[in-house]
């Protein structure tokens, strides 16, 4: 493999995604105005990732949505990731934000420990987060506090375990029966 893992986009690389090229205005604005919202900024592959403390996620989202010039009024995607049973912190929750007026994108990331996988919901900021968070709860067991309707969505209500966790076997523990 000729390509090496690049923490930053080198200057001679083609700009793959001009709308999200580094440094993102969202990252700099958020760091300048509210340094408590951002613990780390990662710029790689023409995308910007902001690591946000989990207590601040709803406030950070609300700020990014309502600040003129940023206007992240559209939650594109919300998904979880399991780093594996040994990793600490174990879970990541990714928020992919988009602005329908400014056309830029940014990713927020919250890191969660296995013994306390709780994060505040962002359904109050974007109503579309409802099903995204239900899906993440269903498949990873991440609990979104204050969510209006946190139920399983893809798997049956009486399903045991969380299927996308790394320690959940591909074929499940036993054949699922409706009885």
């Amino acid at each position: 493999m000729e390509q090496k893992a690049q923490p930053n986009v080198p200057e001679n690389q083609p700009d793959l995604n001009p709308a999200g090229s580094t440094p993102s205005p969202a990252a700099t604005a958020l760091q300048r105005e509210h340094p408590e919202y951002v613990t780390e900024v990662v710029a790689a592959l023409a995308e910007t990732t902001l690591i946000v403390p989990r207590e601040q996620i709803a406030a950070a989202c609300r700020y990014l949505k309502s600040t003129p010039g940023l206007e992240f009024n559209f939650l594109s995607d919300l998904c979880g990731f399991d780093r594996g049973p040994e990793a600490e912190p174990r879970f990541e929750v990714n928020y992919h934000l988009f602005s329908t007026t400014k056309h830029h994108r940014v990713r927020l990331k919250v890191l969660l420990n296995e013994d306390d996988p709780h994060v505040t919901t962002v359904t109050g900021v974007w109503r579309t987060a409802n099903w995204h968070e239900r899906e993440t709860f269903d498949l990873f067991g991440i609990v979104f506090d204050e969510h209006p309707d946190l139920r399983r969505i893809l798997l049956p209500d009486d399903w045991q375990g969380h299927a996308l966790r790394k320690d959940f076997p591909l074929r499940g523990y036993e054949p699922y029966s409706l009885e």
Partner: protein
Amino acid sequence: MSAAVNIPSQFEIVDQPLDTQMTISMGPQHPSTHGVLRLELVLDGEMVVKTTPDIGYLHTGMEKLFEYRKYQQGIVITDRMDYLNPLGNNLAYVMAVEKLLQLEIPERAQTIRVLFCELQRIASHLVWLGTHALDLGAMTVFFYAFREREKILNLIEAASGGRMTPSYFRIGGLMMDIPAGFERRVQQFQNDFPQAVKEFHKLITGNRIFQKRTQGIGYISAEDAIDWGLSGPSLRGSGVNVDVRRTNPYSSYESYDFEVPTEADGDVWARYMVRMREMTESHRIVAQALSRLRPGSVKADAPKVVLPDREAMKTHMDALIHHFLIVAEGFDVPAGEVYHPIEASKGELGVYIKSIGGPKPARVHFRGPSFINLSALPHMSRGCMIADMVAIIGSLDIVLGEIDR
């Protein structure tokens, strides 16, 4: 039926003191739910008070499966998500992996990708048109739409060998070049299609019954549509001019000349008109892509990622070794994470891939546009008549394979 037109969807319905409400289950075998979707409807007479979609009947754990397959094996899984738009899914997935690998795709491959994606968009919209009209009682449109779709499926079959599951786009380019005489066949479709669109308009656009059943039904405002994360034609039907092909161009879309149709009304009719106009725009893009086809390679110059040509494999030792290693062991993708959105036929299809190195992804997540569009259904259907439910579901153009994944 006409009473429903005057009820705004934000209308707050007070609980009935006389206990006249009834809960019924619509689906999962209901023909107009386009798959296996179940809706729990709370009705007051014929009026829908509350809708609770129940999904997951088709859940097959595809996102889990990706983590156990090599990158190139994931392409065939994407075909089976939104099975009406498999080439769009292929494109989103392979472009995300290409972004991780930082591969440059040759111009010819990009042009062919655009050509096929737009043909696929027309095919997907034709299925929507046929079934949407069928749900509302116009049966003839279905046959006309499927006749045209058949021509597109034949084109896809000629190039890839598959009709519903082409897996034609590969990481680093295409499976193989288009066959000889393919341009002529596309041109033939191009010549016939404008006449077909005229026929569709003649069949239902001017139909009074169809208009009455779609205008003013399933209203959603622009602010609500953004808040609910609607995308694609469903969002543009509310007057929001957002198209990923324009806002975050990929595969050289920035160099094509096309319009992004929007309609301000936000009802079923507006979404119908957006899709009808989009078919014409896609037809224009196909014509441009066709005129741009120049001879050249359809595979990136990355021998460790892209399978070599069959001839080279038989004559060159290094090509044979690369072929063996790619098939047997896969290729390493550097650690990183990408979110790559494309404009699929139903809206923003985003692929999130997390790599920790190695030949298999650590996480692949699909932001299915149908999944999110369906989540807005309870909002759009509040206060509508139960017969209009069918129209609203049809106007969202959902595919359950993508919703349940």
